[in-house]
């Protein structure tokens, strides 16, 4: 039995880079090396570009809606970079940038929001589950995937993402409890961006922090400055290593902020002031990394140009891919409900086909 104090998170969120981009003295964890940080920076820039491009596509009427992780890119990048090839990622609707960072084509990811189908990418290709909308439900699937892998003796670890609001759902509790009881190798990574649509964190929990919830399950909880990319990487690396080593599931809470409305359809001015948002601009994860890497001379002007070009190419491919008219086939509505359509679905498919053929001849 672990000493319960070992399960509690640090008093303050782990930080490696302060808000001015300077390394924190006496930090709890070692700094990731420069090569990894440069890769992380590239991913941050691409993540930001993906977020902003997707939001623009909504304004142009190409996407129905987009829940942006603008401002949370350090978490998005960290979640993907902490994974080994055989690991799994369980993302939510907010985590498009993480899914892209894992290697999935953004156009495929946006299939849902484009309205062509529900989940657009092959979950097995990159070991990324479909983005989950029903809050916290995916956390249990993550436990099941991890448990199955463990039963087969594989060293797979599953990274399961959710927001602060989702921690109030019953499935959050059940998932953490199941994972702990079965010692399933899962890292539960909560992006606490202070809001669940309009509802602030104080209305979700009276706990000292979300990471404190771990102790109730016999699980190590840790908290990290979610806008501090090196710290997110270091904390997630450590959690993944512990889960992989058979120490059981881990809970990590990242303190971050949702810079934009919940989605473009939301009006954040109804529930928070600009004065509240402004200070977070200075804590921007990209800015902080850029300052640090420039000072270290890892990031040169030429490098920045290269990375910007890369991000622009991703955005251009998104625009092009989303602009393509891909009329989904009505017949497909019946194709995947069961492994073999039931006789009733065959009848209904024939009905629709007939209706369509008559439409064509009118």
């Amino acid at each position, binding site marked *: 039995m672990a000493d319960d104090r070992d399960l509690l998170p640090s008093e303050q969120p782990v930080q490696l880079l302060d808000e001015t981009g300077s390394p924190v003295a006496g930090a709890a964890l070692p700094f990731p090396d420069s090569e990894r940080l440069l890769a992380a920076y590239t991913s941050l820039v691409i993540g930001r570009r993906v977020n902003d491009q997707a939001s623009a596509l909504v304004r142009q009427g190409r996407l129905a809606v987009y829940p942006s992780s603008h401002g949370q890119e350090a978490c998005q990048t960290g979640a993907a970079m902490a994974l080994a090839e055989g690991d799994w990622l369980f993302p939510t609707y907010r985590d498009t940038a993480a899914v892209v960072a894992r290697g999935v084509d953004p156009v495929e990811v946006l299939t849902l929001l484009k309205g062509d*189908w*529900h*989940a657009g990418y*092959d*979950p*097995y290709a990159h070991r990324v*589950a*479909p983005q989950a909308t*029903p809050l916290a*439900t995916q*956390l*249990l*699937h*993550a*436990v*099941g*995937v*991890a*448990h*199955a*892998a463990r*039963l*087969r003796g594989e060293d797979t670890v599953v990274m399961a993402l959710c927001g602060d609001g989702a921690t109030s759902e*019953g*499935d959050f509790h*059940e*998932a953490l*409890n*199941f994972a702990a*009881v079965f010692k399933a190798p899962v890292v539960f990574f909560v992006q606490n961006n202070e809001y669940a649509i309009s509802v602030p964190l104080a209305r979700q929990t009276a706990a000292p922090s979300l990471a404190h919830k771990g102790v109730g399950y016999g699980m190590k909880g840790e908290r990290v400055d979610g806008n501090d990319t090196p710290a997110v990487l270091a904390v997630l690396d450590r959690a993944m290593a512990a889960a992989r080593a058979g120490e059981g599931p881990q809970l990590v809470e990242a303190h971050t902020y949702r810079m934009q409305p919940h989605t473009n359809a939301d009006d954040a001015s109804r529930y928070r002031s600009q004065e509240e948002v402004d200070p977070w601009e200075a804590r921007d994860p990209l800015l902080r990394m850029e300052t640090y890497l420039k000072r270290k001379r890892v990031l040169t002007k030429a490098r920045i140009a290269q990375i910007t070009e890369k991000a622009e190419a991703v955005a251009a491919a998104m625009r092009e891919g989303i602009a393509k008219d891909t009329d989904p086939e009505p017949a*497909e509505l019946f*194709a*995947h*409900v*069961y*492994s073999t359509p*039931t*006789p*009733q679905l065959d009848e209904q498919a024939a009905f629709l086909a007939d209706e369509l053929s008559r439409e064509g001849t009118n």
Partner: protein
Amino acid sequence: MATDSTKLSMAQALNQALRDAMTEDETVYVFGEDVGPLGGVFRITDGLTAEFGEDRCFDTPLAESGIVGMAVGMAMNGMRPVVEMQFDAFAYPAFEQIASHVAKTRNRTRGRVALPMVIRVPYAGGIGGVEHHCDSSEAYYAHTPGLTVVTPSTPADAYFLLREAIRSDDPVVFMEPKKLYWGKDEVDTSAPEPPIGRAVVRRPGTDATLIAYGPSVSTALEAAEIAQQEGRSLQVVDVRSLVPFDDATVCEAVRSTGRAVVVAEASGYASVASEIVARVTERCFHSLAAPVRRVTGFDIPFPPPKLERFQLPSVDRILDAVDDLQWEDQ
């Protein structure tokens, strides 16, 4: 399992099906509440932990959404989980997982992620159970596209339906009529016929057709026996596969007699029984000599044990419904 015919209770047949499936396929995992050393409150998983080990048949924390949600993940990752909901009404916490994920995952992933899993649900009344232990919850599942929903009425069907459910690449909600758990009958496991999607005529008859499933089949058969003595020949069809529904067999049966009564224990409003009446009427209208009748539970929460018998379809109510099938017009 010997290949010859043995007398088994439905509970034993289900246990045998799990045992045989676990022997044949090492990706089959059984879990739920009290299914381990205890063998389940109805003993359906009796001896499985001892025989296959704690990894293959295990107890979980007490949380139905957790059980089903974890099964989803295991099914995504190469396993064939078979989970037990302890009682019908205690499966409700899992409904979000069932409706939003179990039923939809194949479709939302365009067929890329199949969920080969079975959710076993002991259901319905007739055992004098107190509240929350006797619900007929089949309509919730049958109404949810993407689920296969089956319910046996005999030990042999219990065996074969469960074997086929476990082999299926689609998620199956397996509804077990509690009151039939202990009745014994011949089970010949060497003579398989895939029963999912196929109704079966349990008793031939020429005057009217009783359409029933699960716990109501035995009541319908009893009614047919008494009607026979009174000179009326009733055919009995056991639907057994609620989804997919076997329109062909049911309609052929109804056309052969021209009269039908649907018998089901669940409350009648917006029920599987209502769906069957609609389907039969739409398809067999010109063969029908009378409107199709229903004998179902009242539209009330399941009653306390001392009042239970008023809710269950009885032989008398079935025979009265048959009497109402406008024989005077013949």
